[in-house]
Every structure is written in C-alpha cells, then in structure tokens.
C-alpha cells in the first residue's frame, strides 16, 4: 500500500520545479504575460528537452509513455509559476484525444509532432459542456460549419481538435481554408485561448464519422485533471506567498503573521486545499487504473479544487493588504490563472450537476 507520489515522481517534481523556478522569476512572468502570445518559445523548448510535451505519448510515437499522475506532477509545477505555455491543450488533451479515438494514420501523423513540440494543438470542446451565445459546430456530410469558443490553448496553436456534437471530433489545421481564429483575451495573459470559426471546412474526422464520443469524453476528463493540477500548484504558491509576506510585514511593531486574525486565514487556506491534493492524486490514478471510478472523482476533484482556489485567491490577496492589489507584487498573475482555470471545462456548479447525473442521483 502506498498512497502518494513514488520516488520517481518526486524526482520528476523536483526537476520541473527547478526548471520553472529558474526560468520564471516575477519579472520574466510579467514580460511574457505582456506579449499575450500564450507560449514562450524558450520555455516551450525547455519542456521539449525535458520530454514533457510527450509525457502521455507512448514511446512508439516519440513520447515518454508516462501516466496521468506523472503528467499532473508536471502540470502542478507549471501552475506554481503560472508558466506561459499551451501545455494543457497540446500536451494533455490533444494526445488523449488522438490516442483514444485516432486512427493509426492519425496517431502516426500527429503524435510525434506533438511530442517533439513542433506542432501545437488547441482543443475545442466547450459546447459539449455548456453553450453560450448559441455557439457550436455542426457536421454535415464531411463539412464543418459553426463557431466554438474558449478553444483551450488555441491562441498559439497550429492545429485544432474541434468537437462537432458529442460523437465527432475534427482535426483542423489553422491554415485550412474556411478557418478563422480570433484570440480571446481573458484576465489571464499567461495562456491564450481562442474562438475558431469554421465555414465549409472539410473535416478530417478523428477515427472516422461518429467514432469520437469516447475520445471527447476522455479529452474532457484529462483537461479537467490538468486544469485542477494547475490550480493546485498556483493556489499553493499563493498560500506560501501570503505566509512569507505576513512574516515580513510589520505593523504595530509586530510581524502581522503573529496576529491570529492573519494566521487563521492562512490556516484556513491550507486546510481547504490539502485534502483535495489527495483526491486529485486518486482521480489521476483512477484515470489510468480504475476507469469506472475516474469520472466521478475527476468531477469532485476539479469542483473542489476550484472552490478552494476561489477562497485562496481572495484570502491570499487580502493577507497581502494593499500590496496584494497592486501590480508590483504580481500576485494577480496567480489570482487570474486560478480564476480562468475555474471557468474552463465546466464551473464547479456545472461539474457538480454532472456528478449528480453520473451517480444516478436523479433517476427514480
């Protein structure tokens, strides 16, 4: 019995934390965020060298062939430094879609390019979860029409995987005729999502017509795990930044960390977050080893981490006082990362409703 990270995973964690912390002091984060490109080439290449872009891709397609829990260890590190790379879309969701639903030819064509970091993918599944502004993509014959919003990491992407209803997913190069990409600017400038408009685009369907329902489901599950891990890392850093600040900041001749009003806020933050780390680990493990348990635990884990994240982003900012509200401190980069993760691929309310349905609670 061992519940937790293995020694190898702890090594992985250490090396990625070192990598991101070296690459991303605050001034670099600010500089990269201000470019609003959603991908910094230097860091992306570093991740390719560390084999991270192929973490989930089997060795036969040029990847490292690791499991979801390994991938989440990397994602948590990326979240800790609000790393400006399209990792969730390109290194997690797209490989899962291709591996689950792709034909052998599609896997051979795209997976090695993803692993090598040469091609970046954005993934459009928003309307499968929740539709706003009547968006959505439809397939008629072999032609795609419509709009999809909040394509994950679509800003810097070269190729898109776009769901057209619950059973079809298309591989769409950015440069294909009839494709219009509009970058969407959220409050989080470290990653760039987009809207993709398709007008009479000829579809290369994942696995063939009507064959992608399993792939879409797993892609969404993997994306939710990824966003939750990103928030876990970002939120934990917010807590420790608050603790460190409170130890340094003096008012009324005392470090504010010695006031119970302040330290109880910090205790509440860590208490809300830490149990969900355990649940997220289990959900990631279930994703690979116990598929029957994966869906419900992923829904509970992301919704719970999102709620903890909401509490932490606000409370950690408050502990910083006025400085937390400024750009000088830069805490807002973490705040915004956590906010956007919460909204993507299902807000907690939507996830909890899905969880009720998944458990059959609404059946008679």
């Amino acid at each position, binding site marked *: 019995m061992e*519940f937790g990270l293995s020694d190898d995973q702890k090594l992985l964690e250490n090396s990625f934390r070192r990598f991101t912390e070296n690459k991303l002091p605050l001034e670099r984060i600010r500089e990269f965020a201000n470019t609003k490109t959603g991908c910094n080439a230097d860091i992306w290449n570093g991740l390719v060298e560390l084999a991270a872009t192929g973490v989930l891709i089997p060795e036969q397609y040029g990847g490292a062939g690791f499991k979801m829990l390994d991938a989440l260890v990397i994602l948590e590190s990326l979240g800790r430094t609000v790393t400006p790379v399209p990792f969730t879309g390109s290194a997690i969701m797209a490989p899962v879609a291709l591996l689950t639903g792709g034909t052998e030819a599609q896997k051979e064509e795209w997976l090695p390019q993803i692993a090598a970091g040469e091609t970046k993918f954005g993934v459009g599944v928003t309307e499968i979860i929740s539709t706003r502004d009547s968006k959505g993509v439809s397939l008629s014959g072999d032609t795609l029409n419509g709009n999809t919003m909040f394509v994950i990491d679509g800003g810097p992407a070269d190729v898109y995987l776009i769901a057209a209803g619950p059973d079809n997913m298309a591989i769409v190069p950015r440069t294909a005729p009839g494709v219009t990409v509009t970058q969407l600017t959220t409050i989080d400038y470290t990653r760039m999502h987009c809207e993709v408009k398709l007008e009479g685009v000829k579809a290369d369907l994942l696995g063939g017509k009507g064959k992608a329902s399993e792939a879409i489901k797993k892609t969404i599950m993997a994306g939710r795990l990824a966003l939750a891990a990103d928030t876990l890392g970002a939120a934990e850093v917010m807590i420790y930044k608050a603790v460190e600040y409170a130890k340094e900041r003096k008012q009324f001749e005392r470090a504010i960390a010695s006031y119970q009003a302040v330290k109880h806020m910090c205790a509440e933050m860590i208490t809300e977050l830490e149990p969900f780390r355990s649940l997220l680990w289990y959900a990631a493990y279930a994703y690979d080893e116990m598929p029957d348990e994966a869906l419900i635990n992923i829904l509970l884990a992301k919704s719970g981490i999102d709620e903890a994240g909401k509490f932490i982003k606000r409370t950690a900012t408050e502990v910083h006082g006025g400085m937390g509200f400024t750009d000088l401190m830069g805490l807002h980069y973490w705040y915004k990362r956590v906010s956007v993760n919460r909204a993507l691929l299902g807000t907690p309310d939507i996830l909890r409703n899905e969880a009720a349905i998944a458990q059959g609670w609404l059946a008679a």
Partner: protein
Amino acid sequence: MDLSYGPEYEDFRAELRAFIEKNQHKAPPAGMGMKHPEALEQDWQKLLIENGYTCRTIPKKYGGYGAEPDILKTVIIQEEFTKANVNSGLSGQGIGMLVPTLLENGNEEQREKYIRPTIYGEIHWCQGYSEPGAGSDLASLRTNARVEDDHFIINGQKIWTSGAHFADMCFILVRTEPDKPKHEGISYIMMDMKTPGIEVRPLVTMTGAAEFNETFLTDVKVPVENVVGKRGEGWKVANTTLKHERGMLGDPGQMLSRIESILKILQNEKLDGKRLIEHDMYRDRLIAAQAKTEALKFHSLRLLSHTLKNEEPGVSRLIVKYYGTTLARELSDIALEALGELGQLYMGSPHVRSHGSWQWRNMFDLGLIIGGGTSQIQKNIISERGLGMPREPKLAETK
C-alpha cells in the same frame, strides 16, 4: 501509487470477514454506549481480544493479544467492522488513553494492576483534565493536591468528565508543585471514583442529554503510589497520551455513510411535490460536501502511507481535526435544512424524522468542533507548527 494491500493482508481481511460473519450474532449493538460495560460487552470484548481484533498490540502478560504493531491490520480491522456495522469492541478513554500511557510511563505494578481489567471492560475510566478555568489553556489548571501520610489530598473541580457517573476510576491532572512554572507543577494521578469527597453532577448540554459531568473534589485521599511517572511530570505524561489521541484519525467511513443517509432523505422526502434531490439547491450542497468527504477519505490514505513509511506528514496531518469536524457539521446542516421546518422537530414529536437524530447530531457536531482543541486552537497549531508562523506574543511581552 499502489492501492493493493498485498496477499498477506488480503488473507487477514478474509479471515476477519469470516470471523465477523460467524460471530456477529454474539455482538452487542454497534455504537458508543454511555454506560458501564456489562456481561454482553465484556464477553464480546474477550472474544475479540483472543482473536487479535482489538487490543492487538497490548502485551500478552497484561491481557492483550501481543502482536507487533501493524497499522495496515489496524486499518483493515476498522474498515471491516464499520462496513459490517458490527460492534468493534470497547473504546473509551481507559483503553484509548490510559492504557497507552501506562505502557509508556507506568511502573510494572501499575501495568499489572490496571491494564488487564481495563481492556476487559471491568474497570471503566473517565478523564479529569479540563476545568472551568482551564480549557484551551489546560496547563493553567488549578485543582491541587498536597501530600499527607503518603496520600495526595485533592481539592478542586473538573468539567467535561464524560462517563464520570458510571466510571470506576479517573485519571486526573492536578497541581502538586504550586511553586513551579505552570507546566512543571502538574502530576498525573489515578483516582478511585468511590473515594469519599468526589461529587459528580451531570452536565446537561444543548442536546437535552447529559453527555458530560462536572466533578467536584473535596479532600479526596489518593495513595501517592497512584501517580503515573514522576511527581511534577504530569504534563509530559499527559502529552504522550495526547499523542495517542492525535494518532487516531477521524473515520471517513462514517462520514461517507452519512452522505448515504442524507442522499436517502433527499430521494425520499418531497418539497412542493417534487423530491428534494430534484431541487438544485439541496443536490448541489450535498455534492459539494461529498467532494470534501471523498477528499478526506483519500487524505486519510495518504496520511496512513506516511505513517507506514515513518515519515512526518507535517501540515497535512495538522488540518485533520479542523477539517473533519467542520465537515461533519456541514453534513448534518444539509440534512436539517433540506427538511425545513420538519428538521426542527425533536424527540417524540409527531412527524419527526429519524427520531430527531439529525438535530442531536448537529448539536453534538458543534460540541466536537469545540472539544478536543477548538477550531481556533487548531488554526493556531496549523499556522504555527504547519506553516511556521510566529506565536502571538504573550501579554507581558507586548507591554
């Protein structure tokens, strides 16, 4: 990550299951009894000890099973008895706290005299720690003892002494060295509850029941050999016991079964002709609480894993009391609020649901948030020991 227990443990589990299946008709009803163990409980306890399903690691010469500590087996035992909803043997402060303390700090004579009858349910213990003026700041306790003719003469008042009205013995903290600093003047003493001068008054709580007592002590005479450890070292002795208490994790299995019970309420009860579960507001709250309960379940496994590897889990263990008690109360809140006015009905009223047990539970949950170190004390511990934040300066230091 490896969630299998391995063949040795699966065999152990299978044997235990067979044991429960075969013997459960002899078991007294599950759940904490607020009464002195009687023949039925004592016989069941004896059977469990003989088979190594309780008091496993207590040495044979003191009446235990004498096994090597094996936390996985302890967990399997807890899991299986909870799952079968079968009484898992006697618990309480004698077995849970006094016995480990005697094993660590008692002398041979004390161990031989008290451990066997305690674990067999013949001697029932209560705990005399808290006082009206010494709660969170327990070390400021004022119940005192002077020594005369080889006896402590104890005077003072204790509170929250659950079970004192049927206990045979009490382990009590008293100030024996009034001139020493507060942590160094305390002794840990075992006191016979039949000694003259002890008056136990039931303390009725908000639930309407008397789950606790106040215990008044007037010139209570206790032989000096009843001190555990050395005189004046009672604070240290008590802390080894608290360590055992902290070692016991909350039981997430119990909270998961609460989720099941609330789900049944939501599926069976109707509001405006529609089942509660179909009302988004109640469903959403239950799932949010379910997420936290599942998180606690896996968190316990993570802590267990640390224990198995002898690792210090740091802040992740310190949060458990605060998180668990807050969550338990959140769960009973959901049950009550989903029932609306019906949730306010109590004991014996027409239309009352589950005999009013959700109200009782909800009030008692609040007691558990306060007892055993209030949430505010927990937050001090989490932030100071877990996050390295400084203590609040003492009053004198700030002047």
